[in-house]
């Protein structure tokens, strides 16, 4: 990570007057598209909105926009990490965010391979089977957590260079603490 931070491009992005804020803003603005449409899909699964729209319509016509939004979130997110790699790598919030991203990915896998194959049986129902509702609920909770953790990366409450921190924080963030 220190090697990454020392690269010419990482330094340039970190210190640029406009590029870093522009990448950051893009990352936030695409929340509207990506998380926004994900939430609408989840609300459909939960039977809380768009109940007359078949689930297969949401998957066929909204999911492509979600995927495009996700690609941009990953691209801008990697750039943001690349600009400030050492501190981000040792951020408890970044690590929590990555864990929740993995859980969200597992939830998506579960939905597409375990729930969605049976869609024909309940496609147009307002109230879906519990397995589908559960996937929607998990998705909303995880993405909300991902947004909060992502926003908190900017705050230094638990930074390694602000000691003392609790043993859990130092362990979870991988802080190297000098002992005397």
């Amino acid at each position, binding site marked *: 990570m220190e090697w990454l931070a020392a690269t010419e491009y990482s330094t340039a992005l970190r210190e640029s007057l406009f590029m870093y*804020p522009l990448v*950051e*803003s893009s990352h*936030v*603005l695409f*929340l*509207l*598209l990506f*998380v*926004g*449409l*994900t*939430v*609408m899909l989840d*609300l459909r699964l939960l039977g809380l*909105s*768009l*109940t*007359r*729209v078949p689930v297969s*319509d*949401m998957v066929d*016509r*909204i999911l492509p*926009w979600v995927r495009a939004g996700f690609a941009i979130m990953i691209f801008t997110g990697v750039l943001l990490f690349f600009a400030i790699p050492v501190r981000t790598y040792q951020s408890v919030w970044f690590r929590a965010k990555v864990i929740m991203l993995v859980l969200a990915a597992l939830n998506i896998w579960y939905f597409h391979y375990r729930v969605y194959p049976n869609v024909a049986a309940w496609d147009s129902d307002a109230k879906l089977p519990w397995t589908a509702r559960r996937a929607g609920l998990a998705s909303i909770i995880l*993405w*909300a957590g991902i*947004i*909060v953790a992502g*926003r*908190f990366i900017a*705050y230094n*409450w638990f930074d390694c260079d602000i000691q003392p921190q609790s043993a859990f924080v130092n362990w979870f963030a991988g802080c190297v603490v000098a002992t005397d």
Partner: protein
Amino acid sequence: MLLPFFQWCETLWLGQAVIGSSWLFPVIEAVHLLALSVLGGAVFIVDLRLLGLGLTNHSVTELWRDARPWMIAAIVGLIATGVPLFLSEPIKLYYSDSFWLKMTVLPIALVFAFTIRARATAESVRNTARRQALVGALSIALWVTVAAAGRWIGFS
């Protein structure tokens, strides 16, 4: 001219409470972002349709009816969190161009959403595909401007 009002805002207990805590501002800010995401979904599901994209096999009237409560809930959440954020730093915001841009475009976006855009989703009115597409594009442009100006407040 408005500076005395902003100075008065600074004295209110709510803003003082936010300043007095190291957690309150970030937590409220995070909830502001959560509400922003819901707003984005409710806006895009209708605007994509107005643009002839997304759920094209459903009527835009129906989509707007389903998305509207979530859009209103998101706006209520955004204002409820936006006010304490504002009250915690009114003088900084008074001198922020991004803040004034946001506060200029926000009322336009709100009025547009519940008048011109609401009418563009109705089946009864003479709504050509081209007119609907224009309204959808304008709606996205307005909300993206509000969100971008809001984000930019933090960089100035």
